[in-house]
């Protein structure tokens, strides 16, 4: 790492010359629409899979966002609006009727019908297919019958075709945010051509996925190298402003960053941490930030006696100067967090952690001693994720402000950390992160803090909290749901099962050859907005 710093240092004088060169070659003022026949390149890492129901990481999701069009997308307030769907309605939030827009066709000419959705979702939910995003279907009635080694059924009883463009989805219990959920990658349809037999996906499908989105594959997936897509002219929605996109695979972010500086790559969706301090000068107005949903926090092993008193947890939270760390270590690329859900969500409120979120070293020390906090605190983290700097800084702050011994302890990988936590070994505090799947408070409260939450590794359990979240998701209206979720969040502020630390941002850069580069909450570049700068 020290080496990279060195390179970054020398980058300062470069920015000026680069900026000048860019002006010379561009010529235009940057206004007006770009060349519609241009192709742009975007950095990704090698996707693990390109089947919608098996894609859970950003790179695969970025490619699929070009090839497919979602049922719903999210507006500026992050509320869902229909894209491929004509309407998504329900009178009781249990039986949902989805009407599709007429005119969407797959890239092979097939008309997109309700059956294509039903088949795709059944394939995704069927346990023996081993699809990574199968849990998204668990709210649909009949999902349980598709689980286990030898499932009872191959199709979910909750999915019913009405006609070619209409189908109904029956959930096992009412869920207010089902429409919001439909924006996720797992809910894309699959064409008939994807299956070799009912319920059996062709092996070759993944190498050149056929979707119904604004772009179609150009050739096949060139592993470790690139994925080329070109504009699909029969797409009925908003037309892209470029002719094609090359998703170029990079193993290291620094390589992509070097390419963006040299105009060899158009968009680097993430600027590497080691370049953060120089990137604003390197790239000028081509360095941009936008909101995203990531949430970093420290979790308490609530099963550990040392941390079972909420006052101890609050005292530790109060002894951390979040602003100092976001400023000095993250150079403002992340924001301090004092709430338990991300600010991008409808229903988010500032400072829900209350006094426990404010930096107050004197009060913290008093409270810590009164509550009998442990004399030694360990903060565990995974050593492969670049967390050492901020964990050490946090440890130093705690040491100075609480007057106890605090050490950071690195596990090789996140999986090793989780294994230890699951075995209830003494790991002390440990770092966690969360990125939402769809913009709903429930997507934070459910998995992170409810008793059976999929990512609740710290054993927090409060029946009243569980009840409120459940009532919220079963509510009749969004307002009612949000009111319940907010009450639930207030309980978190009292119990303090985790310490909110930071909310992330997209920090990205682009070349001088493109403009209108926008990134969404899921760290994906908006492919219909990006334009060539000419």
């Amino acid at each position, binding site marked *: 790492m020290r080496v990279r710093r060195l390179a970054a240092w020398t*980058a300062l004088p470069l920015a000026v010359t680069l900026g000048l060169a860019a002006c010379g070659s561009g010529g235009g003022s940057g206004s007006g629409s770009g060349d519609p026949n241009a192709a742009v390149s975007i950095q990704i890492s090698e996707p693990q899979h390109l089947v919608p129901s098996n894609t859970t990481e950003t790179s695969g999701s970025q490619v699929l966002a070009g090839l497919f069009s979602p049922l719903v997308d999210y507006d500026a307030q992050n509320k869902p609006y229909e894209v491929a769907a004509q309407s998504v309605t329900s009178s009781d939030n249990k039986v949902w009727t989805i009407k599709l827009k007429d005119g969407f066709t797959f890239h092979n000419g097939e008309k997109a019908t309700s059956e294509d959705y039903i088949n795709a979702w059944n394939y995704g939910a069927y346990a023996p297919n081993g699809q*990574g995003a199968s849990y998204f279907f668990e709210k649909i009635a009949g999902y349980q019958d598709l689980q286990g080694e030898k499932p009872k059924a191959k199709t979910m009883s909750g999915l019913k075709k009405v006609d070619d463009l209409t189908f109904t989805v029956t959930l096992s219990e009412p869920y207010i945010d089902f429409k919001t959920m439909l924006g996720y990658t797992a809910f894309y349809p699959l064409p008939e051509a994807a299956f070799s037999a009912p319920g059996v996906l062709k092996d070759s499908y993944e190498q050149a996925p056929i979707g119904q989105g604004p772009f179609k594959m150009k050739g096949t997936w060139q592993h470790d190298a690139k994925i080329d897509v070109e504009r699909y002219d029969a797409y009925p929605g908003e037309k892209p402003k470029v002719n094609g996109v090359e998703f170029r695979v990079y193993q290291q972010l620094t390589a992509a960053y070097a390419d963006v500086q040299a105009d060899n790559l158009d968009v680097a969706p993430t600027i590497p941490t080691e370049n953060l301090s120089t990137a604003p000068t390197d790239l000028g107005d081509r360095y941009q930030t936008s909101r995203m949903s990531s949430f970093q926090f420290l979790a308490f092993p609530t099963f550990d006696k040392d941390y079972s008193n909420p006052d101890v947890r609050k005292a530790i939270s109060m002894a951390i100067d979040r602003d100092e760390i976001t400023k000095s270590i993250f150079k403002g690329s992340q924001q301090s967090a004092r709430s338990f859900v991300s600010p991008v969500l409808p229903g988010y409120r500032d400072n829900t952690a209350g006094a426990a979120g404010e930096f107050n070293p004197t009060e913290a020390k008093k409270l810590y001693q009164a509550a009998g906090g442990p004399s030694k605190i360990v903060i565990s983290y995974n050593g492969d994720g670049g967390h050492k700097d901020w964990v050490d800084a946090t440890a130093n702050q705690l040491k100075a402000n609480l007057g106890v011994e605090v050490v950071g302890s690195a596990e090789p990988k996140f999986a090793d950390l989780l294994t230890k936590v699951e075995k209830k070994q003494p790991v002390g505090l440990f770092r966690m992160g969360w990125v939402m799947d769809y913009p709903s408070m429930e997507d934070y409260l459910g998995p992170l803090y409810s008793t059976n939450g999929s990512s609740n590794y710290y054993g927090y359990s409060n029946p009243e909290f569980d009840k409120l979240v459940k009532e919220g998701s079963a509510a009749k209206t969004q307002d009612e749901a949000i009111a319940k979720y907010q009450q639930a969040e207030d309980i978190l502020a009292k119990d303090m099962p985790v310490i909110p630390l930071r909310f992330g941002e997209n920090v990205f850069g682009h070349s001088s050859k493109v403009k209108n580069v926008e990134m969404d909450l899921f760290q994906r570049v908006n492919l219909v907005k990006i334009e060539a700068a000419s």
Partner: protein
Amino acid sequence: MFRYILRRLLQMVLAFFGTTLIVYALMFAGQGDPIQALAGERPVTAAQRAYLTEKYHLDATGVGGFFYRYFDYVKSLLQGDLGQSLTGRQIGDILQAAWPVTVKLALIALAVAIIFGVTAGVIAGIRRASIFDNSTLVLTLLVLGIPTIVLAPLAQYFLGVKWQLFPPTAGSEPTFYALLLPGIVLGSLSLATALRLTRTSVAENMRADYVRTARSKGLVKRRIVSVHVLRNSLIPVVTFLGVELGNLMSGAIITEGVFNIPGVGFNLFRGIRTEDGPLVVGIVSVLVVVYLVSNLVVDVLYAVLDPRIRYE
């Protein structure tokens, strides 16, 4: 000679199985939870865990499980099947795509080492203690002192980004020109060593009796150097370059990463990072073969360079 090669080939078979066993055991022992590593920081569903566990026999643990999985692996290996990586790709396909790029890169690096290293070494050896000799000494010490992890980003930054003489990264289907800069970076270390070796060897031979004899016979200096001295001085250099070729083929993990070259090192790095046991073992198995073959070629080359060496 024929018998010698045959014996070596038979030894190679043993060495091959020995090394794959060790590598497989190491991967097996060091494996934490590959399924979680694959999923990153998200929770893994029970369905997917069950699916991957069954597919890769991840439930077979302990000594018995190890041999079960190893023999399973060797069995398919003998049928020419390297297996599937944890993301479901054929390892054979991965290697087929990665290998040509790495070979190209290695050859460029080797060419750089030979052309500049050996030539400069010969000149430095003949003109011992001259300005040329001393300045190459300083330069090579400098290069040997800077690790690739510093040299590669610096070269990329100055030559690729700042002065834009070379493309900063190579990417897929790289042109010869795009591979030139990474090739030079990769070759610079071997270059320095080759230069030092050649220089010492040439300097020593220049004082040898046969050179004095040749000179007193009135042979022209150019002929003495190019025919007699050079041939005798190359033996240590060839040994070094042969082993180095194996090293270069194994993929320069750092160089390929910095310059985004999808070669062998690139894949090996990803395999190790994601605990993708089948991928790492597959790549290493092929690398073992490359090392064994390049060593054999070096040994045979000795006999060509020095007729006194005979193999029975």
